[in-house]
């Protein structure tokens, strides 16, 4: 009971801190929205980008920013910001729809590998849950296991039942942990970028005089494998690899 009190107190404290700092972001957000309403998308972009710069973001900020870029016909930036928004709020319909629309505007057609039925079902769950949600779920099960084990110390007579329950909960927790670690690996340790330059030449090495292999267009999603000075080595899902200048791509 005491712990819960402490915890809620901490949460209250944290949110209070956020509220104090929120005055300026709220202002910027409103300005961005009204600029968008008036059709001044450039201005809207600058307000929202400012929010991103001062590190006061939310899924809505990225979403509105994506919309503003979309209206300015900057597909790459739009896709980038929708992707960022979706990571924070993976089940939002608007974000999903707009991302799909923005993606459909991009020139490059890259075939994603076909997913099997089981994988698709698993990935469905995977795609629809944000990292923090998954973390909370894992934590919930983990804490449940711990507390049940603590109880089991005091209730010697029913220890066996407690341990079994804890064991099965532990298995669930473990499965979620696998998901979580995969997701963290994918989102925070694997760099995924969106091409924001209108058209970019992909070369065979990190220099302008290397062989031009192929070109990519705005809005295409690439995986970044390596970096060297001002260049990224990228990998496309269709087995294409090459180097592009850092400036032409934004990391989600």
């Amino acid at each position, binding site marked *: 009971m005491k*712990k819960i009190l402490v*915890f809620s107190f*901490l949460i209250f404290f*944290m949110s209070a801190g*956020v509220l104090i*700092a*929120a005055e300026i*972001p*709220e202002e910027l*957000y409103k300005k961005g*929205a009204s600029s*968008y309403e008036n059709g001044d998308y450039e201005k809207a972009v600058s307000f929202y980008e400012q*929010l*991103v710069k001062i*590190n*006061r*973001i*939310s*899924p*809505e*900020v990225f*979403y*509105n920013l994506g*919309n*503003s870029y*979309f*209206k300015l016909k900057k597909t790459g930036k739009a896709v980038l910001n929708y992707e960022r928004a979706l990571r924070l709020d993976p089940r939002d*319909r*608007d974000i999903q*729809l*707009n991302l799909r*629309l*923005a993606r459909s505007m991009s020139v490059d057609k890259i075939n994603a590998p076909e997913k099997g039925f089981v994988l698709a079902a698993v990935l469905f769950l995977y795609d629809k849950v944000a*990292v*923090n949600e998954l*973390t*909370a779920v894992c*934590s919930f099960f*983990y*804490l449940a296991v*711990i*507390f049940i*084990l*603590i109880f089991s*110390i005091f209730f010697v007579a029913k220890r066996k039942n407690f341990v079994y329950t804890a064991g099965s909960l532990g298995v669930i927790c473990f499965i979620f942990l696998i998901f*979580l670690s995969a997701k*963290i690996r994918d989102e*925070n340790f694997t760099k995924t970028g969106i091409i924001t330059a209108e058209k970019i030449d992909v070369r065979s090495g990190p220099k302008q005089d290397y062989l031009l292999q192929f070109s990519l267009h705005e809005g295409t999603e690439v995986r970044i494998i390596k970096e060297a000075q001002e260049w990224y080595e990228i990998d496309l899902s269709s087995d294409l690899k090459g180097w592009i200048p850092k400036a032409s791509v934004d990391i989600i």
Partner: protein
Amino acid sequence: MKYFIPFLLFFSFVAGISYADDITISADVDKQEASLDDQITLTITVSGNVSNIPQPDMPELKGFTAYSSGRSQNLSIINGQVSSSVSFTFILVPNSQGEYSLGPFSINYKGKAYSTELINIKVLPRGLQSSVPEEQNTQPQHGKELFIEAYVNKLRAYVNEQITLTFAVYQAVNLFDNPVYNPPSTTGFWLEDMPPQKKYYKVINGTKYLVTEIKTALFATGPGEFTIGQARLEAAVEDMNRFLSNNPFDDPFSMFKRGKSVILATDPIKVEIMPLPEQNKPLGFKGGVGNFDISVSADKNTVEENQPVSLKIKIKGKGNIKTVSSPVIPDIQDAKFYESGSSENISKDNYIVQGEKVFEKVIIPKKEGILTIGQIEYDYFDPVLKDYVKKKLDPVIISVSKSKEEPAEKTVSVPGVAKEDVELFKRDIAYIKMFSSGFGPRNNFLYRNRIFLLINILPLFILVFLYLYELRRAKFRTDVGYARSMRAKSSAAKRLKAAKKIMDKNMTKEFYTEIYKAVIEYIADKLNIPHPSITKDLLEHKLAEIEISREVTEKVRALFDACDMARFASAGFTKDDMHKTLKETEEIITLLERRI
């Protein structure tokens, strides 16, 4: 005549290229006199030393109906000379009696015309045998191996009443191929085929016939006298003459040849169609003739206003279902009314056209209350009763409740109205969100949050601590030696504390007793030796056993000696000595604590 068209086409192709030379054309008939129910075989032969025989011009054959019966070609090349002849065979069926001349049949080749002589034919009245004896008679007469018959079930009928026409083929011989049935002309009637063909055997005058019946239902469209024309059958029968030829070497392949073509025709049938009586004719009569039943059903009895009700009116019975029209529904106030289509289901059991026709109507009540639909009436003429019949239905009552939605002029979906896909004019993105759920830093991940991590790790520590504690407690409970050993230091410390108090009181003897007890009990507890059995020597022995260094053992022995001495001669011990001993004892216990 219709067979000539493909004919002409064929020859116009073939006649494309040809060489001029002798061409002869001749026409021949198998007999020059025939009765009305007889038939004549006409053969036109064109021959010449050309490979492509030009087409013969066919004049109209007055008084006859001609059927093509095939063509045969004969081509020979001798010394480079091509000579060929083509024979065209036609079956002519006389249409009326009199004298006719056939031809001339002609061909036009390279500007030259070749033609045949005229052929005169005399057509005699029906039933009269031609003067020339027939080699074979294929007239529709009983006693022959193949004949046909057509009859109707009634010669007097009302308009739109069913007349069943039966066309029967009697055969006592095998037919080559399937015979071709040419249905009679039935002007003035509505036709309804009635499959299947009925086949059965019948014995007439000692001959067993296979009878095939084709039935057709006829419904007259208006009153008057009508003629059902000739029905014809084209068949190929075995040519008995050829087959029975005396000399088998004449034509050894006769067995495999096509049989003789035969055309059979029936007599026309006159039918009298009576008009429906004007007397008693109801106003709502719409021409239904037969015997019908009518029923009505609504898909629901209670409905909200502006919601559709589907009404089905079913007319079922015998008669020309296809011409049955919808009964009139009296005007309904406070409701909109739509025709939604009709469906019919026709069967021909027992060769009587019957079935049901369902008329669907959609009614949309506009006002709450009781909606009465009816009374629905249907009038028809029953040819058996020779009178009109009126069928009345009970009114359909639908109770209409107030709509839960706002009524007004909203569009109502009517069943049967095609739904349209949402038409997408142009895709645009969803609109921006006007409110943000809050603003936080980027990468604000729970798993990186220290408080969150602490909340998660702390219970784990608690668990580990509690577990170890519980483990220790359990050991105390079960392992006496362990418990004693664990308690040894604290009980020794207690005794030393007591000794110190005694020392302050300057009670030398008691002090040393206490010191002695403290040390000896401490060692006994540590080594788990029962208290009563403790002796100085035993302890020393035990200490040696667990390999305590000599130095320590010596110290312990010295202490014990000192204690012994003080207990028996306490006078010689000052407070300083006691202090020293106490310190030594503490040292020893610390030393032992480290070793044991």
